[in-house]
């Protein structure tokens, strides 16, 4: 088959591919042609951090994601997708890039091409490190990941009480909307509060440590009961107490910081 190789160039409203005026038969004006990338996909060997025994289908999906976003500085896959089983809504993907990225466009393109929902966060490496230093959720998220390129995070935790206040406020939603939220949402909000608590207590933060703290604080099987939405009002009272205690500690931290300024 006759082939032509050309480069995609940027246009104003649409991008284009220029081909010579003098060309071989089959490329007449109006002819339908197939366009596909000429380079073979790079042989990507993902780096697994704290991830073991992934189902084989997940490894295939990981490779597709890595290939799809190979033009970014790095791709990090995290979240419930890396847990055993298939109980995840979408796949959390961190795209490390210095450029601006239209994440919702990327998400919808990927979903259209592969039928898989992604939740993409585009972030530059400096912000990622800053997030890891100050943000309990980032720490939990990156306690387990798969990345396109090997990456090692060596960070020293720094408590930013204003940021923790902002995070904790998210979990206040649980108090006012307890009867209306599905189990999955409740779990996320409780997990958030517990991650903040562990962060302030300088404890290690991973999905496992957070879940074990939930069970130890609220009682055995709580994690399972939250997810299945089997909690009653007595749980809510205990949660309110915990929330107030964390909030009080955060306010004390803010007060202390403001004295030192």
């Amino acid at each position, binding site marked *: 088959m006759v082939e032509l190789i050309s480069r995609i160039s940027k246009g104003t409203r649409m991008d284009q591919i220029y081909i010579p005026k003098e060309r071989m038969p089959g490329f007449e004006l109006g002819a339908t042609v197939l366009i596909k990338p000429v380079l073979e996909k790079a042989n990507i060997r993902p780096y697994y951090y704290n991830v073991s025994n992934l189902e084989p289908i997940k490894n295939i999906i990981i490779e597709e994601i890595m290939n799809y976003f190979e033009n970014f500085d790095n791709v990090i896959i995290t979240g419930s997708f890396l847990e055993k089983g298939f109980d995840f809504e979408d796949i959390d993907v961190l795209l490390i890039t210095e450029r601006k990225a239209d994440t919702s466009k990327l998400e919808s393109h990927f979903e259209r091409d592969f039928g898989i929902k992604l939740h993409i966060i585009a*972030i530059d490496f*400096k*912000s990622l490190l*800053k*997030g890891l230093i*100050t943000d309990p959720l980032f720490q939990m998220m990156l306690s387990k990941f798969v990345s396109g390129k090997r990456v090692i995070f060596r960070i020293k935790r720094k408590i*930013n009480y*204003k*940021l923790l*206040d*902002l995070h904790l*406020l*998210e979990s*206040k*939603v649980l108090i*006012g*909307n307890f009867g*209306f*939220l599905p189990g999955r*949402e409740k779990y996320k*909000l409780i997990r958030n509060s517990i991650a903040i608590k562990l962060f302030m207590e300088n404890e290690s933060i991973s999905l496992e440590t957070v879940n074990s703290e939930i069970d130890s604080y609220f009682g055995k099987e709580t994690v399972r009961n939250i997810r299945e939405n089997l909690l009653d009002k007595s749980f809510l009272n205990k949660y309110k107490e915990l929330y107030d205690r964390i909030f009080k500690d955060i*306010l*004390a931290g*803010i*007060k202390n*910081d*403001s*004295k030192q*300024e």
Partner: protein
Amino acid sequence: MTQNRNKLIGLFIGNIANAVVHKILELAIDDELLRNYYGKELLNSVEIARKYREKINPINRPLPEKDIEYIKNKVINKSNSELKLRIAKGYKNINLDLVDDIIDKMMADMKIKD
């Protein structure tokens, strides 16, 4: 029916007030890098408020003037008391003057008002 509507309005107010406080606190973060990053994240409270809004009649047009006034006043009071609590503890950079505009914007966005 009215009781149900009032309950929904109450829940809506709680979530919008939470979102307003969140927005103001976001703007009060000293670190620009963090502020820019967290400013982009969509809040749970906004999403939940939107769901309640979809159940409050009239759904597709602004609420009656007296409802708008009631909701706005309640949200202002709730947001201000949360923010003042923090100011009293020495939280700096909280700009209470922004509350009004942020509420107006959110209420318009949710078709509570024009």
